[in-house]
């Protein structure tokens, strides 16, 4: 009897050595002294294994940053930054797998299929952050738009991941800069801007300032 982890490791080893997925669960199970049933007890498909590895990476990164002492002092912006730094650091330990997985995954709208699980978790994580940010006044609450903030962050997730897969700098230092800049830009856009005040002022004057086209100075 094998554990989920063992199956996972055997699978990663297989795809990285051979460069492609096993032809069938049957073949894979046979090579690893498993029955098909045992395999299906843990995973529904090979993609399922990959998805679970991604989810584990995500959860480990998140747990790691949440356990940092400073976590509670962080603003939403900083929490997002911290998460990405930790996540990219973790990905380093599985870079070959990550590159393989992204390259061979079926492309779906918005994300590769192997990231389906991660997207749900990420959305959950960022929604909470955004709620906190709006509540603390760090982020602007804009009708129709606030609920889309998390999508902008998911786009950043894709951009950063993509940047990292192509990064040749030592210690992936450029990715660090990409994270710092990308997340900051995104949060700058979420924050209150002069346009919000202008819009607000305009609304106020329209309602109360007697600003109608017929008024003469």
């Amino acid at each position, binding site marked *: 009897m094998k554990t989920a982890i063992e199956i996972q490791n055997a699978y990663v080893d297989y795809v990285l050595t051979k460069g492609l997925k096993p032809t069938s669960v049957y073949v894979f199970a046979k090579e690893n002294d498993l029955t098909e049933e045992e395999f299906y007890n843990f995973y529904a498909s090979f993609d399922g294994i990959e998805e679970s590895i991604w989810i584990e990476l995500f959860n480990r990164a998140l747990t790691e940053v949440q356990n*940092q002492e*400073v976590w509670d002092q962080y603003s939403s912006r900083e929490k997002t*930054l*911290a998460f990405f*730094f930790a996540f990219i650091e973790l990905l380093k330990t599985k870079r070959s797998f990550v590159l393989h997985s992204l390259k061979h995954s079926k492309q779906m709208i918005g994300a590769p299929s192997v990231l389906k699980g991660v997207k749900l978790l990420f959305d959950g994580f960022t929604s909470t952050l955004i709620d906190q940010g709006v509540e603390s006044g760090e982020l602007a609450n804009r009708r129709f738009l606030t609920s889309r903030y998390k999508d902008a962050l998911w786009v950043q997730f894709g951009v950063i991941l993509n940047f990292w897969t192509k990064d040749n700098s030592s210690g992936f230092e*450029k990715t*660090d800069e990409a994270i*710092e800049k990308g997340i900051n830009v995104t*949060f700058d856009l979420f924050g209150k801007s002069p346009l919000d005040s202008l819009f607000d002022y305009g609304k106020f004057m329209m309602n109360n300032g007697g600003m109608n086209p017929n008024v003469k100075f």
Partner: protein
Amino acid sequence: MKEQDSIPTSKTERSAKFVKTGFKVSGNYIKHYSKKLFNPSLNRDELNLENAADIYESLSELKGSALKVAQMLSMDKNILPKAYVDQFSLSQYNAPPLSGPLIIRTFSKYFGKSPAEIYDEFNIRSTNAASIGQVHQASLNGKKLAVKIQYPGVGDSISSDLKMVKPFAFRLLGMSQKELEVYMSEVEERLLEETDYELEITRSMEFSEACKNIENLVFPIYYPKLSSKRIITMDWLEGQHMKEFMKTNPSQELRNKIGQALWDFYNFQQHELRAVHADPHPGNFLITPEGKLGIIDFGCIKEMPDDFYYPFFSLTSTDMLKDKSRTIKAFKSLEMIKESDDASQVEFYYRVYKEMIELFAKPYMTNTFDFSQSDFFEKLYLYGEKVAKMPEFKQARGVKHFIYVNRTNFGLYNMLHDLGAVVKTDTWYPHVEIAV
């Protein structure tokens, strides 16, 4: 303090920032002249102030080497109008800080641990910017520490930054392209050294050891084991920067004591070590509550080779100036007069440089010197202004070592002037033959 959230790093982004400043500066001119239409009494001070503020804003957002250049420009009070100087002085400390998670990231990269695991306490908000990094307060085993962290990618961007600072330097200093080339490569070399924290910590330890017997100086203890390529850990020194210190109305006696320590510190290095802390801006010094001078930054060290040291200090500290042919020979070896100059040029540069050396050497001519007297500085400024207007000085003159040696010594004079100190100037004397 407003926290800075992003630092533009790619070259295009940085260029955009500079271009923006350029627009703003020309905008200020337009604003100035349109205001002047209505108010002819408006003087240029206001315009200079607006320009300086915009340039400062732009430079400090860039951090890194551009901020360093701002600091450097602010040292040259004798070249820049007062308004520029006031604004640039801001850049000497209090530049906007960078955000937190990257700091933790830097730690885990170089130590494999978070700051919380290394220190007993670590303040994630920085207390000051150190131009290419920032300073955080920490504590370990009951000791208060200062932790200096460098922003990643600073080294990469220095060269491209300097290229973009050039047009501003042209405009601000009225220098020619050729002259700048010589200077910029020297500056670039020093700046790159400054990004090397491993070198800095070695030097800091060497210099504080070498200078430890000088009275009234305090050096922090450095912790090489808690330092790396991007991080320096040292003792936290309590104290005030010069400006705050002066606001407390210190007694003349105390000001003299600090001034003397400063003078001794620099002249000991110049003449005994032949290498000098070449960054004499007030942000690198603290005046401790015990009335001592704390030195907190050894990032920039200028070494003085013999072929510079001997001719230069022979000029300032012997009666060589009275002997015209020997003076000219020394000027030639310092490339202040070139072999290609004709007789009238030799005569011209001889006169102008002699005046400069005489001014520079004035504090050395007597046993004590009162740096509070304004007329000496007036003369320095006037000389600087006069020379800046001379077409003969649009071209490169003088060996490259002058940039940092001048910056060091005029920086020292300026600080002593700000302190209003009277110091004994014969404590550490140049090692050149006095008898001729």
